[in-house]
């Protein structure tokens, strides 16, 4: 990994940690942005970690662009010596796969898809070498995912699957983006999963929908009263397949304020994960389910 620094106009420094996506690149990006945040550098106004890169917005009237660049390059060294453990949380997200709403949307935009005769799940199962849609869903819901970036639109998490690279699910995006995606769609593009926080345009394949809102600007939903956005980079997500009846039950519980997302604190070690992903995932799921 060679870090590449570039100015984005006169108000941003953009740092590519690595050209390709990996947990190492994500951890390094998260680690450096945490160090930069702790430094409270005068003139730095926004610190945005992304999948394998990050971006710093600053006021050039307060700090000279070249001075900030040198400071960031100095902090890169400091972040290197940090150990790669992360105190975070694991969250269970219920998903109604193969739901009628994303299905209806898929059919409306079928001519923009690689496979106009099938569904997104059938296509994704085929291009990833799974015999059936059920096998594909089992793989999608089987391992945890890292929130490696929050953005695009308000509160949308990008998710990176926590398995060896050769097992990661990958799909192309739609040939031409849709102008509509149902709110809370579980999407997938490239190697990244996503939960569409708001209704709108999108190009990711659509696999299902969650009844658990993750963005509430009105801050009326019980678990979004303190802050309107649910996810932050470093969160770990585990999808749980649910049927229509359970989807309806959760949605009703969200509406009457009784739904409490299943969340447990965990410590994640990148080194342990790299040595034995399956064992680390099993431990994480043990914590989630109270074992």
């Amino acid at each position: 990994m060679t870090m590449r620094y570039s100015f984005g106009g006169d108000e941003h420094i953009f740092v590519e940690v690595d050209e390709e996506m990996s947990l190492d690149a994500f951890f390094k990006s998260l680690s450096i942005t945490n160090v930069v945040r702790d430094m409270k550098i005068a003139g730095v106004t926004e610190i945005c970690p992304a999948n394998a890169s990050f971006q710093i917005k600053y006021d050039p009237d307060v700090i000279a662009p070249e001075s900030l660049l040198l400071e960031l390059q100095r902090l890169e060294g400091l972040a290197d010596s940090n150990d790669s453990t992360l105190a975070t949380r694991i969250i269970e997200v219920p998903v109604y796969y193969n739901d009628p709403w994303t299905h209806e949307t898929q059919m409306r935009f079928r001519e923009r898809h690689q496979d106009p005769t099938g569904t997104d799940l059938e296509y994704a199962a085929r291009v990833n070498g799974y015999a059936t849609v059920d096998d594909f869903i089992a793989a999608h819901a089987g391992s945890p995912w890292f929130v490696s970036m929050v953005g695009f639109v308000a509160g949308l998490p990008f998710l990176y699957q926590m398995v060896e690279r050769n097992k990661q699910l990958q799909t192309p995006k739609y040939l031409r983006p849709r102008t509509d995606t149902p709110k809370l769609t579980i999407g997938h593009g490239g190697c990244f999963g996503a939960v569409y926080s708001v209704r709108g345009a999108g190009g990711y394949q659509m696999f299902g929908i969650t009844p658990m809102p993750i963005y509430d600007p009105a801050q009326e939903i019980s678990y979004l009263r303190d802050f309107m956005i649910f996810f932050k980079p470093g969160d770990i997500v585990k999808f749980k397949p649910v049927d229509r009846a359970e989807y309806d039950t959760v949605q009703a519980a969200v509406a009457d304020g009784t739904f409490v997302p299943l969340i447990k604190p965990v410590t994640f070690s990148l080194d342990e994960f790299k040595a034995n992903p399956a064992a680390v995932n099993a431990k994480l799921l043990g914590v989630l389910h109270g074992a």
Partner: protein
Amino acid sequence: MALEILKPGLATTVQDLGRPGYYHLGIPVSGGMDRLSLAGANLLVGNEEGDAVLEAVFLGPEIRFTSDAVIAVTGAELPVKIDGVECPTWTTLGIKADQVLSFGFLKAGARAYIAISGGVDVPVVLGSRSTYPLGALGGYRGRKLEAGDVLALFPAKRPVAVGTAIAPELRRGPGASPVLRVLPGLYRHRITAEAGKGFFEDTWKVAPEADRIGYRFRGGRPLEFVPREPPFGAGSDPSNIVDSCYPYGSIQIPAGAEPIVLHRDAVSGGGYFMIGAVISADMDLIGQLQPNQKVRFSAVTMEEALAARKDARTTAAKIRESI
């Protein structure tokens, strides 16, 4: 003290100077697309520069006032009418209770800033009154205005004499042949040197897809990419990158075809390469571009970008002193 929206215009929203600090969660800064005009309108009515105003685009609203007020309209040349009588733009105007503010057809520019003494009273959300419609956040109910909306006003602050005006030489606009200055960088290395040169030589035209999220341009030559093996996670198109943050003003060119300059309601990240970013001093100009307008991009250095920023600050200071 209130405004009653009789006709909303095309996409009139409440805006102030924005909501910094939440871009890492996908919430953009928002705020007026032409900040100098927004601040100027506020100064003309005795407000703080960052008080909430109405931003109207292309087509003005029709508004009845429930009490006497002082108003000013800056930015685009959108003819101002009070009870049908034309009044000057960039000028402090008095309006009486029950009078109606309306607008003629757009003559130049794109966005008009309507400031009212006291400022528009909508709740502060995450530190700002600006509207971010995609996230249903801020402003008046998180959306553009509709007929029948009633907006409250704060009490007037400092008196400003009716007829006070911002001098024409201090009204900065894109002019007849706009040039947007760009600091090249970001993923510039993804296209060939020749394609990079061509981008700055060609004349581009503002596409109909031009809004607060971003401005799309058409008409230049398609860009040729440097061949590569796609990095893991980037996607197979030569213009794809592993999804990253997008700076405000950054110029992404999906498939090398139509550049998009992100503006104040920017999507905070995505998977397309960027050739560089428009400098901060020229962002206001984009807010005043109309579809079909011809534009050129010109490459500048960081020193030139900072000098342009200083010039813009000097203009802002002169406006402040002149009122």
